[in-house]
């Protein structure tokens, strides 16, 4: 479905400088520098799979998605998606993909979603009967039937995102690019959208490339995850493998009867909730607990695995994945 070899995108940027003098100098003489947003990325994706793209802000995820969707022309490398070169943007290619960008609306906001979808019907050449059936089934699944005739600008963020998904899937694309589709949504809306994406992968066999900052999106939807850091592909495999590379760590969380310097001396840090947290390798938990009990008067204590978000953040902060 997708074959990518050494894909690179270099942006030309300039530094505006700090202060009026620097800005005036920049106005007269602009110094550009090349920044690699994506550098030598290679991978392949099978049809019908859901792959997650993970990385810090500015890591190059969206640039990669935009190149594969055909929006950006790469500075180097090759890509074949459904036997087409994406950035040639042939209509035959554009008819087979759907794109949702959480931070960039694609619908016309001054008209209703139904008017937007009508444009899609013509542009994607969907037969009237099929359009009707598809619209009914998708809008029921997303629970937006009653909102189809409301001006898009008057919809809530979650409702807009559902409409974007509806518009992206109306023409039965074989490949769906989802760039942060759950950003800014509440937990209920996030779950609904996740469930919807899962059902499309299962029932329509659509291939999904998903970027998200919410680890739950990736955990629940993507058996395979790419970690991108500074434009480079650092990990290609299950999320659990990525997290496992940090080693098996447990988090001891506790409160103490009387505050003092002792918990910090043990290496614990105090969270905003007032609790103390101590992270230790799993096999050292009994020793750490013993030391803790001897040192302080513990009120409440629990031992858990650290949240996935935090572990991945750790990996991203380190900027490398240990082999």
């Amino acid at each position: 479905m997708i074959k990518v070899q050494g894909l690179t995108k270099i942006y030309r940027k300039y530094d505006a400088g700090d202060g009026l003098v620097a800005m005036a100098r920049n106005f007269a003489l602009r110094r550009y520098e090349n920044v690699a947003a994506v550098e030598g990325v290679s991978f392949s994706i099978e049809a019908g799979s859901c792959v997650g793209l993970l990385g810090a802000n500015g890591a190059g995820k969206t640039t990669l998605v935009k190149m594969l969707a055909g929006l950006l022309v790469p500075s180097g490398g090759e890509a074949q998606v459904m036997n087409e070169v994406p950035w040639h943007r042939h209509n035959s290619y554009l008819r087979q993909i759907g794109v949702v960008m959480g931070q960039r609306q694609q619908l016309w906001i001054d008209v209703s979603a139904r008017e937007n979808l009508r444009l899609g019907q013509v542009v994607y050449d969907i037969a009237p009967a099929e359009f009707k059936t598809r619209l009914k089934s998708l809008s029921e699944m997303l629970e937006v039937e009653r909102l189809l005739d409301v001006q898009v600008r008057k919809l809530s963020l979650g409702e807009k995102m559902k409409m974007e998904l509806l518009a992206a899937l109306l023409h039965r694309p074989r490949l769906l690019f989802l760039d942060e589709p759950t950003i800014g949504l509440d937990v209920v809306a996030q779950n609904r959208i996740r469930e919807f994406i899962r059902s499309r992968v299962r029932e329509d066999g659509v291939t999904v490339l998903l970027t998200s900052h919410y680890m739950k999106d990736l955990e629940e939807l993507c058996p395979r995850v790419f970690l991108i850091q500074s434009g480079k592909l650092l990990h290609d495999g299950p999320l659990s493998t990525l997290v496992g590379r940090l080693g098996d760590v447990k988090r001891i969380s506790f409160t103490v009867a009387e505050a003092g310097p002792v918990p910090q001396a043990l290496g614990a840090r105090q969270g905003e909730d007032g609790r103390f947290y101590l992270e230790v390798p799993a096999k050292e938990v009994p020793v750490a607990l013993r030391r803790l009990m001897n040192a302080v008067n513990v009120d409440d204590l629990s031992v858990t695995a650290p949240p996935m978000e935090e572990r991945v953040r750790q990996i991203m902060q380190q900027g490398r994945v240990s082999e």
Partner: protein
Amino acid sequence: MKPRWWRVLSAPARNFLAQLRLSFVSALQYRTDYLLTVFSVAVSAGVEIALWQLVLKKTGQVRGYGLADLIVYLIVANVISMMCVNWESVLDMSEEIRQGSVSRHLLKPISLFSVATGDWLARKIPVMLGALPVFAGLHHWIPLQFHPHFNHVLMFFALLATSLWLSAEIYFLIIMTAFWLSENQGVAIGFNVLRWGFAGTAFPLAFYPGLLVKFLDATPMPYFVYYPTLALLGRLPTEEFFLKFLYAVFIGCALSFNRWATWQAAERRLQTVGG
């Protein structure tokens, strides 16, 4: 279901009409904008007429135009200009390119030219429909000496079509400059100012010195407003009409080719970082 070959061949026209419809519905959402635009168009024509009334009170005639001729000329020229001048969609679409939201069009199997042209005409049609009765009302207010012959109407529509074509091509080329110059509003503003002065909207180009008129004749400028207006007023002889029409088609073809070539380069330059 129509045959596949028909669907493929008719796709650009169907896409354009669908986009025109959507943009039209979108334009109708803004009632205040609409009413103010209609009002401003009528007011600007009224101001021009009032100024020429003052000038011609003393001179009586300027280069073959008396006050009655000039009033008719200005009304027709303003109607054509209203249809062809484009500020809003050029500035909006340039901003979309600058901000990266143009991707919503580029990700669909529809040409950006169809989107831009559909959006432009959709904004113009309601204004045109609203302003025409205002201008027609002038006929009761000022006795107009305006009785066009059928041939003149045909010539007018032929030249109006070329005017729209040339305008669409040039405005799309201006939009394209946003792929190179993120601050391309200056290009759009500059062109519209030049157009106001040299297309024949403010007054007939015959008022300019002969050498300048000859120079302008080689550019698309007089084909936007001046020649269509002359045709409707019966001031363009038939032989000259054919020459002008052929030349306008020639310029249109050159601009279309230029637009195609520019687009090939422009779409490779899209630089949208983040989001």
